[in-house]
């Protein structure tokens, strides 16, 4: 079934099934999947949430809860069928020859035990080292994963480590016994891009140096493109496409893979054009569709799809399999199977005479105090936003991007007056924005929040949620008309009027985010502040929401302030992009200009850190990997706030925070070495 040499096969999984027997039925979370991993190979398992990726990984380790029923023809690990061995034998493999790294570094380490204790545990258990040897090895391991002062760190507890550092510790634990296989379950999903790049580089580097095979579970196609040798694409508990990573990215053959690839916004492509979206949602595994499970969402669906397609070789390549009856058509037509015409919408001209929103020297300082010793307090000021100025014109989208803790959300909250700004001026529609006048413009300025699960009241129906603002602001006084208006709104955001009777928990994440958008639209606002509106959604749903936001903008001329950490998403949707770091603007400019010609070292590093879903580009570009982590906002570096992590830092940088200076058409950056860097 694949071209891995029999001698080199490390893991050979044949017809793996995992079933969960629940009260109201059986869920088959993994359905008859087979795959192999070669020694030292990097396999990625990709798919959206709920498709069975994590269950696959946990079932290999036999770490699923008791209600899970695992069966397989065989799971051969280094020639031994581990699906048949008793638990006591399995325990000896875990942590010794197969180890696992989990998604949540914040909760995956035991809070009451020291790092040293947790790191030496596998050494003491499996290798029968004594305490002294184990400690020496632990120090070596911590050094290997790039943790400074390992001797000192050994006696510390997890809460004294940042998220990125904790994930390094997890990798050290995983590597402790020099295993043959590491399973990494979304190891960087909870981390910032710059830290993600550090962790993935580390994992790749160490695994190739030590010849460890890696199974990486991820939803991020960029990560796959950058690191994987082979790929399994999973959909609704089955593998739909499998094989060599380069092959699959070059000639994706299953419609789902094509959709997945095309629904991700690309940083390296110019702005404009709709994203391909896969309609609908993944099926409920309690009662999956018969035949091909992708059929209800597939643009190529036909009668033949009522039968179950099997994995077959594609394009004459032995190492490329797909499970679809129409792979020829799919790979020939590519993304056009999703888009009727390759429509590149002409971006509407933005009238730059009267800015809708002017933010001038915005400051948001928070004073914090904490105990530092015996009955003594230390207090300090966190400058969450420090001297931020920009304008938003009607119908324009301004993207605000940066790592967590850079102050982007604080900017949005200050504009909405959810937090009282401590300095600076704001104007909305030529009205000075302050705590008194904000009530007058609230209607024109709406917000969409990040978490569609917690931002809708669970005890109100969708109808009531949408009706409330219409009543409160007395926009539509007549109740009959209100009903009609709500139906209009629901249709406008791609929902159905009958959904007004539903409660939020009856909707999916994407549908809830649509309700959030409808709620914001009901006020007929001029500006919507979108705070990470798509970061909680799967890529196919994310594309649907992004398209919706763009359509609404063209139709209604709404301006967006789009706050997000995903550079590609921001690039795709924004006319103008602002890059923030530690409360300050580092660089801003027109989207295409900024991304094709980033001037500030931080912007460059951010872009290098975000992987592009194309192996050809991803593996050949040179990258600046940022060192270190975000400094404490209580004690920012002297001079340029970025100086502590910048690769081009000089003494002059540490003297003074540079001002924003012109470096192109409507393009400014705050760096004193702009000219030097341009030539470099």
């Amino acid at each position, binding site marked *: 079934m694949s071209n891995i040499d029999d001698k080199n096969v490390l893991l050979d999984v044949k017809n793996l099934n995992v079933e969960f027997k629940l009260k109201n039925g059986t869920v088959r979370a993994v359905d008859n999947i087979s795959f192999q991993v070669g020694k030292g190979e990097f396999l990625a398992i990709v798919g959206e949430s709920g498709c069975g990726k994590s269950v696959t990984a946990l079932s290999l380790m036999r770490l699923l809860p008791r209600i899970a029923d695992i069966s397989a023809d065989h799971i051969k690990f280094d020639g031994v069928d581990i699906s048949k061995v008793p638990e006591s034998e399995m325990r000896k*493999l875990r942590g010794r020859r197969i180890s696992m790294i989990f998604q949540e570094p914040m909760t995956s380490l*035991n809070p009451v*035990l020291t790092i040293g204790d947790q790191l030496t*545990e596998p050494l003491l258990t499996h290798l029968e080292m004594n305490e002294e040897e184990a400690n020496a090895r632990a120090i070596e391991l911590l050094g290997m994963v790039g943790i400074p002062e390992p001797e000192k760190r050994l006696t510390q*507890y997890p809460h004294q480590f940042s998220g990125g550092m904790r994930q390094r510790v997890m990798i050290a*634990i995983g590597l402790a016994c020099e295993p043959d296989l590491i399973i990494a379950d979304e190891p960087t999903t909870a981390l910032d891009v710059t830290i993600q790049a550090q962790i993935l580089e580390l994992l790749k580097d160490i695994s190739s140096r030590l010849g460890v095979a890696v199974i990486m579970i991820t939803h991020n196609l960029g990560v796959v493109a950058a690191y994987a040798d082979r790929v399994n694409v999973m959909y609704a508990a089955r593998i739909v496409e499998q094989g060599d990573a380069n092959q699959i990215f070059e000639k994706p053959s299953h419609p789902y893979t094509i959709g997945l690839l095309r629904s991700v916004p690309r940083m390296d492509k110019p702005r404009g054009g709709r994203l391909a979206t896969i309609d609908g949602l993944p099926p409920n595994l309690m009662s999956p569709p018969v035949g091909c499970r992708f059929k209800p969402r597939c643009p190529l669906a036909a009668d033949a799809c009522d039968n179950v397609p099997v994995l077959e070789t594609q394009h004459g390549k032995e190492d490329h399999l797909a499970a679809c009856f129409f792979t020829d058509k799919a790979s020939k037509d590519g993304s056009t199977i999703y888009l009727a015409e390759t429509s590149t919408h002409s971006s509407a001209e933005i009238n730059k005479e009267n800015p809708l929103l002017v933010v001038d020297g915005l400051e948001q300082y928070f004073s914090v105090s904490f105990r530092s010793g015996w009955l003594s307090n230390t207090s300090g000021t966190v400058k969450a936003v420090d001297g931020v100025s920009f304008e938003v014109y009607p119908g324009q989208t301004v993207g605000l991007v940066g790592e967590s803790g850079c102050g982007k959300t604080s900017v949005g909250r200050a504009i909405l007056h959810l937090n009282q700004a401590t300095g600076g001026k704001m104007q909305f529609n030529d009205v000075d924005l302050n705590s008194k006048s904000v009530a007058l413009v609230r209607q024109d300025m709406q917000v969409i929040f990040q978490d569609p699960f917690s931002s809708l009241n669970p005890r109100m129906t969708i109808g009531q949620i949408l009706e409330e603002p219409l009543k409160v602001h007395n926009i539509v006084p007549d109740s009959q008309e209100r009903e009609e208006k709500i139906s209009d709104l629901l249709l406008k955001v791609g929902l159905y009027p009958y959904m007004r009777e539903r409660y939020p928990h009856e909707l999916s994440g994407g549908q809830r985010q649509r309700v959030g958008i409808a709620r914001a639209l009901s006020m007929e606002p001029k500006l919507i502040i979108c705070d990470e509106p798509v970061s909680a959604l799967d890529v196919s749903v994310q594309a649907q929401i992004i398209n919706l936001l763009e359509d609404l903008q063209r139709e209604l001329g709404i301006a967006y302030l789009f706050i997000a950490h995903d550079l590609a998403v921001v690039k795709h949707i924004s006319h103008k992009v602002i890059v923030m770091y530690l409360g300050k603007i580092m660089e801003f400019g027109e989207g295409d200009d900024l991304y094709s010609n980033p001037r500030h070292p931080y912007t460059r590093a951010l872009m290098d850190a975000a992987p592009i879903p194309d192996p050809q580009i991803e593996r050949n570009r040179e990258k600046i990997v940022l060192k270190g982590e975000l400094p404490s906002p209580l004690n920012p570096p002297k001079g340029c706030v970025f100086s502590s992590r910048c690769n081009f830092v000089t003494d002059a940088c540490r003297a003074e925070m540079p001002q924003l200076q012109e470096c192109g058409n409507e393009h400014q950056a705050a760096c004193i070495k702009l000219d030097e860097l341009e030539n470099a």
Partner: protein
Amino acid sequence: MLSYAIRRILLTIPTLIAVAVLVFFVLRVVPGDIVEIKLTAEGGMVSEEEIMREKERLGLNDPIMVQFYKYMIGLPQGDLGISLWTENSVSSEIAARIGLSFELAILSTVLAVLIAFPLGTLSALFRGSILDYVIRLLTIGGIAVPSFWLGMLIIMMLLATVGQLPPLGTVGLFEDPLTNLNQLIWPALSVGYRYSSVTARMLRSSILEVLSEDYIRTARAKGVFERIVIVKHGMRNALLPTVTVIGLEFAFLLGGLVVTESVFNLNGIGKLFVDSVVRNDLNLLQGLVLTVATGFVLINLIVDLLYAALDPRIRYQK
């Protein structure tokens, strides 16, 4: 850790002062007069004059601020005043009884912990099994059954089986440990059953919660023995909420168990409390309240320190 401990200890002082002040003034608002009760106790009439003289003698005619001043000055020296009824010092009255209540509280706690830990742990580890259901039935029973009623059942059982009651007349622990134990083990059991039920249920739910944490999965993924996963990674985290429950229950026991003490004919703090209320003996009452409050504060302090010992996040808190 040390600085945390010292800070916590120093913080108890203002709490205790506040309690002392509050107790003093609240009790003065309560109506009733001990002198009248005391003088008419033996029957017959008493004259206004006699009452005044008695009040003068006991210092009850002083202005309230003068009384307050004397009380507050006495406190740091351990002087709680005299009982207005027996005219012994309040501290000696309490000291005579507190030992018994304290011993009973300790004994109940030991019994409760000995019962609760195996029950709670087994119940959690074999969740959903017959064993779990039996344990849950037992513990829900323990919470529902009043301990004095259980006490009466125990006495009846003793009469029915060995045909005799636990020895009467309190014997000190150091005088005759066996007799003392024979006297106290029964009330301790009747109180400890309820106590252990509350603790076992708490322990069960916190173990279940901890076992579903990500770090337990990490420990299993390391190939650590299941026994070590549960004891080393699970128990220590599960102990935190359980320690709070034990501490609170213990502090309640220090306050005396009015009904259980009478069922077993024990002369503890509970009985003294009732007597002082009935007689309107303000000095004794405020001494008692203060003692119990101090007990609560101290137990809370110990629980906090235990928390810090178990959980580094608290120990290193800034």
